[in-house]
């Protein structure tokens, strides 16, 4: 394998609906932004593309990635579509990485989109629930918010996690997004407002859950030689990992924790793992990515994380899977203030505020979740962080993580059925 660099990226404004633009035009906007940022790279240097969108139901157009390929003028170059539920974007990013790492391409475009506004929210929830077992899970009342609610009820039972700790994730991510013009749902919230918003599936309220969105995102990956020619500040992809788990949550084992280098078996002598409270696919993804990047203690060696916070509860669960804290400590981790940004006023008492920002962009909770674009959106935000160009692209410096050296992006599908972790480093 040879080194791979990200050289540019672009995002459309995520919104509830973009009826004036179809998916081709949304991707085109993000693509044009991407090319504009690397003027020394011309279209003929792009060797091929990987497209990412989740749902044929939402799109009602099979092989939609082919229509993007021709709209962007990339025919007859190589093209394919990657699909893996909520992790579609993360898988697409890693597929483009594989194309360059293998030597098959010197420059690969990764593009992703989703157009979720074409049906009402509850039909949309039904479409998403079709990504659970349609014989055994969906007919019972298939509803992803219900599945995540059951997981966090068990997390609360095992570890004492509280709804107020979950609400703090919502306060953090929505407030971060006040400085992100790409975000769909930026706002100042209090813990009380999160808890008093309409109950969706106990204990998750509307403000614990991300929204549906229309949007697109694009990343451009390149070999070392090409990256050096076209980009003043390329970002190196130093680790990729992914993992999986059984489709039916009910089928998950209750065994031993998959340990990271900084953990010991004695940390978890009584924990039955992963059960339904943890994502072993996420732990596997992190373990593989850390091994490739040579990371032994993520909290010490990373500068920030952009993770898949479709739910406030899954952000807490994911702190633990990624080893930012031990299993069971996720609630106290957010309560301490560690994953908040420094220098922002959240209206909360945060003793360790800003030590390790998680979702400085606002995450899925505030940016929105146009599924096929989401994992690529995280890559673009991480890329700008590591270039130190957040101020230039967001027209606001507040979200720039100071001295950002190394970041992790985490993309997550289903109830943890596909998960990716990728590590990016400043050069």
């Amino acid at each position, binding site marked *: 394998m040879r080194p791979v660099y990200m050289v540019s990226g672009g995002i459309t404004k995520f919104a509830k609906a973009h*009826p*004036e633009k179809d998916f081709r035009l949304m991707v085109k906007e993000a693509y044009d932004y991407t090319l504009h940022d690397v003027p020394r790279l011309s279209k003929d240097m792009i060797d091929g593309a990987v497209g990412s969108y989740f749902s044929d139901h939402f799109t*009602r157009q099979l092989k939609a990635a082919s229509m993007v390929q021709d709209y962007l003028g990339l025919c007859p170059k190589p093209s394919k579509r990657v699909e893996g539920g909520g992790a579609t974007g993360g898988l697409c990013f890693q597929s483009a990485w594989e194309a360059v790492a293998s030597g098959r391409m010197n420059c690969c475009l990764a593009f992703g989109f989703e157009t979720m506004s074409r049906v*009402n929210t*509850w*039909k949309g*929830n*039904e479409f*998403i*629930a079709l990504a659970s077992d349609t*014989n*055994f*899970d*969906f*007919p*019972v*009342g*298939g*509803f992803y*918010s*219900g599945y995540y*609610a*059951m*997981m966090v*009820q*068990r997390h609360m*039972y095992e570890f004492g996690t509280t709804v107020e700790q979950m609400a703090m994730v919502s306060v953090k991510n929505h407030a971060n997004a006040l400085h992100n013009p790409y975000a769909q749902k930026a706002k100042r919230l209090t813990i009380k407002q999160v808890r008093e918003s*309409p*109950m*969706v*599936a*106990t*204990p*998750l309220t509307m403000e614990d859950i991300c929204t549906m969105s229309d949007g697109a995102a694009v990343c451009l990956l390149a070999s070392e030689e090409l990256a050096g020619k076209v980009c003043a500040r390329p970002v190196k992809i130093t680790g990729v990992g992914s993992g999986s788990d*059984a489709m*039916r*949550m*009910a*089928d*998950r*084992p*209750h065994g031993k924790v998959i340990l990271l280098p900084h953990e010991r078996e004695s940390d978890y002598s009584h924990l039955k793992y992963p059960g*339904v409270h943890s994502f072993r696919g996420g732990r596997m993804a992190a373990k593989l990515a850390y091994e490739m990047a040579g990371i032994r203690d993520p909290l010490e060696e990373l500068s920030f994380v952009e993770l898949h916070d479709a739910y406030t509860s899954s952000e807490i669960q994911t702190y633990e899977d990624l080893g930012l804290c031990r299993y069971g400590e996720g609630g106290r981790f957010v309560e301490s203030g560690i994953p908040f940004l420094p220098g922002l006023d959240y209206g909360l008492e945060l003793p360790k505020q800003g030590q390790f920002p998680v979702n400085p962009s606002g995450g899925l909770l505030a940016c929105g979740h146009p599924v096929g674009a989401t994992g690529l959106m995280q890559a673009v935000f991480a890329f700008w962080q590591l270039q130190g160009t957040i101020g230039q692209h967001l027209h606001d410096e507040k979200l720039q993580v100071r001295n950002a050296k190394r970041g992790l992006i985490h993309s997550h599908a289903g109830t943890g059925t596909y998960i990716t972790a990728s590590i990016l480093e400043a050069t």
Partner: protein
Amino acid sequence: MDKGTVLYGVDPLILLDHYEIDYHHSYAQDSPFFVGLTKGQLLGSRCTVCGYTYATPRAHCMGCGAATSWLALPLSGLVHTFTTCHYGGEAFLKETPFTLILVEFDGADTLFLSRLKGIRPDAVRIGLPVIARFAKAPAFKVTDVWFEPADQA
């Protein structure tokens, strides 16, 4: 019946686009589970090699890959976790609020997803003893079984 074209907007042009389809859906190797529900049986799967026991139908073991055999699960268990859904997918909106549970059984290594009925949502707790109930007129769906609190039996 052709109802003509329904327009929601003209700039951009937005119209109603209907889509509907019937499938010939086979439960294939999982069929005995659904037949079992019509006889008041809850069938799980036990690996014929390693003995790992699933509270769901699974013709081959996830661990060792060997064939499983059917076994009758107990008709009582404990609530492993729960939620009450106040919203849902469109197909289930009219049934809200409804309570989902994962059930744990003596002698099974994994869980079973079902509805819990006959209890106030705020009375549900982890560890609550529950018993299986079966539909008198089966629809050959996993919802032919649901659970109720054991103390109401």
